[in-house]
């Protein structure tokens, strides 16, 4: 298994701990995380990406236990092997489209995919030198997907990637995530409560508050 979690628990200070069901995903597989808001979906995503450290249990990605990594080694591991797509694109507005991708490669210290090829693939070639501020919402979200893919990660995490998009773009974004993840053999986890996404992914996991 590429991604394997076992008996994950996390507690925010002063709150009851949340337990999460185990996840195991192979490369190229996609998983949908569903749940009420406040059920801990995003917390689980943060645990998977190593942004939060579980109070119990472990996340193992490609044989590496995230909890065992500390400080900069964890940051670097995340930069190299985990691509994250957020609800909003959150691109660095001071940079151009292509520079946003190059930035990911600089911090990840990795030459994954060639930024120009990737932009070509995502139909963004014409926007390579455009300022981020001039992009439409859909374009910006596609750039943020490109940024998550550019280091050819082993795990792609997407947090409500379609919530601010219209039907057409939402479907396109999900298709893109699926096809690109399959192409580079990465595991894909999408957190959503968007009905439009549910039909696209077969594996579903429900997160419930304990």
């Amino acid at each position: 298994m590429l991604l394997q979690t076992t008996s994950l628990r996390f507690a925010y200070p002063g709150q009851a701990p949340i337990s999460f069901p185990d996840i195991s995903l192979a490369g190229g597989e996609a998983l949908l995380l569903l749940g009420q808001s406040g059920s801990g979906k995003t917390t689980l995503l943060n645990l998977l990406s190593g942004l939060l450290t579980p109070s119990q249990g472990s996340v193992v990605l490609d044989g590496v236990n995230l909890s065992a990594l500390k400080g900069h080694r964890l940051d670097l591991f995340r930069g190299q092997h985990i691509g994250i797509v957020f609800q909003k694109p959150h691109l660095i507005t001071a940079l151009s489209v292509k520079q946003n991708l190059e930035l990911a490669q600089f911090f990840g210290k990795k030459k994954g995919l060639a930024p120009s090829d990737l932009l070509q693939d995502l139909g963004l070639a014409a926007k390579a030198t455009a300022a981020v501020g001039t992009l439409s919402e859909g374009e910006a979200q596609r750039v943020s997907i490109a940024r998550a893919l550019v280091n050819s990660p082993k795990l792609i995490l997407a947090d409500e990637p379609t919530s601010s998009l219209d039907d057409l773009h939402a479907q396109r974004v999900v298709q893109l995530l699926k096809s690109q993840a399959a192409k580079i053999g990465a595991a894909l986890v999408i957190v959503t409560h968007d009905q439009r996404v549910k039909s696209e992914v077969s594996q579903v996991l429900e997160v419930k508050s304990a």
Partner: protein
Amino acid sequence: MNLLTLSWKYLSFRPLSTGLNAILLAFGLAIITVLLLVQHQFEQKMTRDAAGIDLVVGAKGSPLQLILASVYHIDFPTGNIKMEEAQRISRNRLVKQVIPLAMGDNMQGFRIVGTNHDYLSLYEVSFTAGKTWEFPFEVTLGASAAQALGLKLGDTFTGSHGISVGSHDHDQQQFKVTGILAPTGKVVDRLVLTSIESVWYTHDEQGEESIATEEVEMPLEEGTSHEEEVHDAHSAFMDPLKVPVAAQGFPTSNQEREVTSLLLRYRNPMAAIQLPQMINSATSMQAASPAFELARLFELLGVGISLLQGLAIALVIIAGLSIFIALYNSLKERKYDLAILRTLGASRLQLVTLVFLEGISLTTLGALLGIALGHGFLAIVVELTAQEVVTLVDPWVFLPEEGLIFGYALAVGMLASLIPAWSAYQTSIAKQLTKT
């Protein structure tokens, strides 16, 4: 893509704020640059111009004025002294050398100074053309005077009375350029040098004495009464314009003559104690020591310089605060950016470096701008005031002390970035990213 380019992108993304802060800092640093240059060059040039002059003797008045007028040729002379009395001083056994000076005229603002050849040796001059004056009304031009007046070897001109532009012309006699000096960076560059005799004869034009104006090529414009007097004079004396001038010491004259001041060199250290006191108490003249007066002048200037320095430091501090606020505010807006950078693999240390780089790039920009502004400002001031004290300053000299300005800028950048960098270090990515 690297941290430096990223920090530059962030800076250039906010051009107004970045520009304002850089300019604010630049103004403070420009004042410091100007002060450094002016102070350093004034002290250096004034000390160099006074080298070899132990004492200046002239008419009673302000000793500082005497020094400024006789050594630097920037203030009005205190008056004239009797040559007889001056000669008595020069015979004193404590005196090694005396260079007499006669002043009172100018050529378009450049002072015409009557002296002897010792004055040229004092400043170790060399000639680019011609040689020293040998007869009355022959002049040697300092390098900048020659350039500004546009005079060449063999050219003639008339001087004007007084030491600044605007008085009446001495049109009786024409000076002839027989020598042009190489640039020395010293006071002689700005002078029109001639013999003491020339200065005397120029002022003799009222017609009472020895000068034979009819021998000069220039036609007389005055009335006939003048010519008659001239003829009288001519019958009594040999034509003084054909007599070589004194190369050393005082010129000879059968009349009661005056000079403006004496540049004096001591024979031994004892002279420094006895001579000034003797001159000040036993004669109608005063003696002033350039070293002492310079020290006093720098002390007086020091107050003004300290005030300006205070202003400059205040400006730099305000600039530092402003940069701090700009960084802090932009960082607050950019917390999300920082969190994103972390998810892309940036370490905390890299984010801290990024913030520091931004602060330091900004202040380095300010330092470059400030130094350029300082030199540019001086260049404009020097350009606008052709004949004043400020022309002593060369605006395009770069001092090693200007490296200090980069040091200040760096320190300001570091200090201003300290708190923002700490807050960047502290940023929790998960908390930042889940915030909506």
